[in-house]
């Protein structure tokens, strides 16, 4: 094994040099060699060296292991976490060539983590330590005889269900309540009137500044933490932990296509320039094609991302490989986009008609239990497809829910509004999530949404779930 590691280290020297020559700007990189069982373990815990326990990770482990054992799916070639230094895992069971490819791929991700704007707020240098302290805190609550595993589990179950209902764009500052008050008050003032001496003063009714929340709040867990006075310290702390971890993963959800495409694009450029010996090169091409093969009926983010990045480069430079050590307009475009976009804007800005046609994109709609192709990428259809795709990438695939009122009907019920834009909620999930929300809030929770075209209130209180049509 040490022999292999020395060998890998030699290749890594060349790869990291090539990456640098291309202009990739990476965190220091660390690789850990592991076997497939450890790999599945890392996957179950999102790659984290330490993570708090919860049965859902055991479930993830079992599922991955079953799929792997039965050959339904292979393990991902790369697993890299957004931290500084970036931490990646190499499977000892993989072929040498695959590990070299993985190293090249990982540098792509590493550069992306460091430079894309969505990751700015994740504070990569503390990632590993943060997850470690989270784990320690959760374990301390489990070991506390007055709390115990079951109570912690019940709270984590509930918190996990709501955790992705948090702010998506972390580069927009969340205003404090004081700031919100000021803004609201100022907005209520009559416009400045240079002739106010001769005009009659308009009536000024001060806004209701007692309302909670003043502005609709997207951070469900944090809001409940701060406004349910019956929560104990450890419960508040668990909500904070779950929220923190969700926020950490939001950027990765936001940039799946970009990030995987970016890493694939660079592993391809780097590997092509490495002068691989014949046998390695053939194997590399096989693996590369495997990673980038289209998923029939679905969407392979590696493939779609790769093609879009390629087209961005080629729009500037014309077809041809990307040359290292030469600043070109194409490369400049690539690096700019990797910094300022996320999946939704990436698709919106760079998915062209030609690309949609080349990728053979189509839109499918469920009809009587089957998915039927409703649009193909022709002259009329491609823009519809693009719009649908934008709705399904990044956090757009998660419904937007905002807390409107913490004292709904004057009964301290929690009113949440679903920002409806045409897609209806999955009712089974909504019901269960409301149950969890009620468990955390301690009182009735009301969700306003649209079902079957009608405004509907979904309610969960001590008597269970109920729905009410409106209008």
């Amino acid at each position, binding site marked *: *094994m*040490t022999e292999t590691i020395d060998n890998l*280290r030699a290749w*890594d020297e060349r790869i*990291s040099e090539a990456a640098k020559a291309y202009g990739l700007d990476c965190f*220091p*990189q*660390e*690789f*850990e*060699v592991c076997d497939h069982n450890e790999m599945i*373990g890392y996957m*179950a815990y999102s790659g984290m060296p330490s993570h708090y326990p*919860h049965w*859902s990770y*055991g*479930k993830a*482990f*079992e599922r991955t292991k079953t799929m792997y054992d039965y050959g339904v799916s292979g393990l991902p070639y790369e697993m890299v976490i957004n931290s500084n*230094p970036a931490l990646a895992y190499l499977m000892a069971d993989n072929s040498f060539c695959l590990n070299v490819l993985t*190293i090249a791929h990982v540098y792509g991700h590493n550069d992306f983590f460091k430079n894309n704007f969505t990751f700015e707020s994740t504070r990569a240098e503390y990632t590993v330590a943060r997850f470690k302290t989270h784990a320690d805190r959760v374990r301390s609550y489990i070991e506390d005889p007055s709390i115990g595993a079951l109570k912690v589990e019940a709270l984590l179950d509930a918190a996990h*269900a*709501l955790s*992705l209902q948090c702010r998506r764009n972390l580069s927009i500052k969340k205003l404090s309540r004081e700031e919100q008050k000021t803004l609201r008050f100022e907005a209520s003032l009559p416009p400045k009137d240079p002739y106010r001496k001769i005009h009659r003063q308009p009536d000024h009714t001060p806004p209701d500044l007692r309302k909670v929340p003043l502005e609709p709040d997207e951070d469900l867990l944090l809001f409940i933490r701060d406004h349910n006075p019956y929560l104990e310290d450890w419960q508040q702390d668990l909500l904070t932990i779950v929220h923190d971890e969700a926020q950490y993963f939001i950027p990765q*959800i936001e940039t*799946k*296509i970009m990030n995987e495409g970016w890493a694939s694009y660079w592993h391809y450029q780097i590997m092509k320039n490495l002068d691989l010996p014949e046998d390695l090169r053939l194997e590399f091409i096989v693996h590369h094609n495997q990673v980038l093969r*289209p*998923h*029939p*009926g*679905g969407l*392979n*983010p590696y493939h779609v991302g790769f093609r879009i990045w390629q087209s961005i480069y080629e729009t500037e430079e014309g077809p041809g490989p990307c040359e290292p050590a030469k600043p070109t307009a194409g490369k400049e475009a690539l690096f700019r986009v990797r910094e300022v976009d996320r999946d939704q804007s990436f698709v919106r800005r760079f998915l062209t008609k030609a690309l949609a046609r080349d990728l*053979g*994109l*189509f*839109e*499918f*709609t*469920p009809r009587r239990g*089957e*998915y039927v*192709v*409703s649009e*193909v990428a022709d002259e009329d259809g491609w823009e519809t497809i693009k719009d*649908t*795709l934008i709705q*399904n*990438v990044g956090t757009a*695939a*998660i*419904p937007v*829910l905002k807390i409107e009122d913490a004292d709904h009907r004057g009964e301290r019920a929690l009113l949440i509004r679903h920002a409806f834009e045409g*897609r*209806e*909620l*999955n009712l089974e*999930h909504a019901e269960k*999530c409301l149950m969890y929300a009620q468990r955390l809030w301690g009182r009735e929770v009301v969700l306003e949404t649209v079902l079957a075209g009608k405004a509907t209130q979904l309610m969960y209180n001590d008597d269970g779930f109920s729905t009410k049509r409106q209008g």
Partner: protein
Amino acid sequence: MGAVFRPKREESADRSAGDRQRHREKVRSSILDNIADIIAEESIIGRSGDDIIKVPIRGIKEYRFTYGDNAPGVGEGAGEEVKKGDVVGKAPGQKGKGRAGQAGQEAGVDYYETDVTLSELIDMMFEDLDLPDLERKDLRAIESLRRTKRKGYRKVGIRVRLDKKRTVLAKMKRERSKGMRGPGVRHTHPVPTAAGAAGPRLPFSQHDLRYKHRTMTVHEESNAVVLCIMDTSGSMDTVKKYLARSFFFLLYQFVRRRYESVEVVFIAHDIEATEVDENRFFAKGEAGGTFVSSGYSKALEIIADRYHPELWNIYAFHCSDGDNFGSDTPTAIKAARELCSLANLFGYGEIKPRGAGFYGSSLIDAFKKIDAPNFQTVLIERKEDIWPSFKAFLGHERNRS
């Protein structure tokens, strides 16, 4: 600057062991919670133990706010042209999934059903029951099944039992003893080639041959018979039969786990009793009144005929809605007492679904007179009652032993 490489750790803790354990516990308890539904809903009574049953698992699914299945998605082509109107997959909720998750948020399909074989399921159910071994009279075990068992090797035997490996070993030993094979000779010993340029070879001889030896063992077999007696009069509707069926199923499975061979007898009765096969037993729709005693007499007749209590462990259970002709009840009680004296366990289940009218003549009250230790009555009102009643039924036997 190159990266840091950390070699594989020699031993690594199985970090997810605790979480896996907890997950399995949840799956298990979820299955146990649903057992009443499963046995009531599935038509599993006639199935073999290897059949796979889909068990819905509640409580271990992870929920998030998501969009419903009615939202459109985007896929990419895989070479061939896709036309409008083509079917590219099945929507979730339908059986079988032909499509990967939607673009972007590929959380993967959450499984909410698990496959267990029927026997696993039954094992799980009875595991928690914590029952002592049932009474099993010595006489009721009869010598039957002659099984053969391996026992060593012999130099004589029939051709099919020739053990090739041992035969070759024996031959090699003989070669060695003759100095044709061994540490000193191995290198000079020529390898036989296709051209046949082999050196001196020793053919197999009769002394080399080794045969597997088998002996016969006499196996003791315990027999049991389950007598399913059901009222098929006009008042027994489908719902009631359904409940009865579930109960019989449990009983059968339970007995089957404890005895080598189990036979089942189905006796359907209204005014008269007949022995029927399983399908007719549950499908049978009769009209008319009820003489419970007819079913018991038939059972007694069958026992006298085929299942001698000395040789057979007898389990009898009767399901009815309790609507018996008043004049028949004393006869029925007498017959029931007689059945108790023959059977290991005899039970009466009265099925009265909620909302059904209450009939004045409830057998359950009349049967209170029977004080045989192996007699037990249960009242089943809903399918949720089946499992608890069944446990009570067997629990009775446990208290007795």
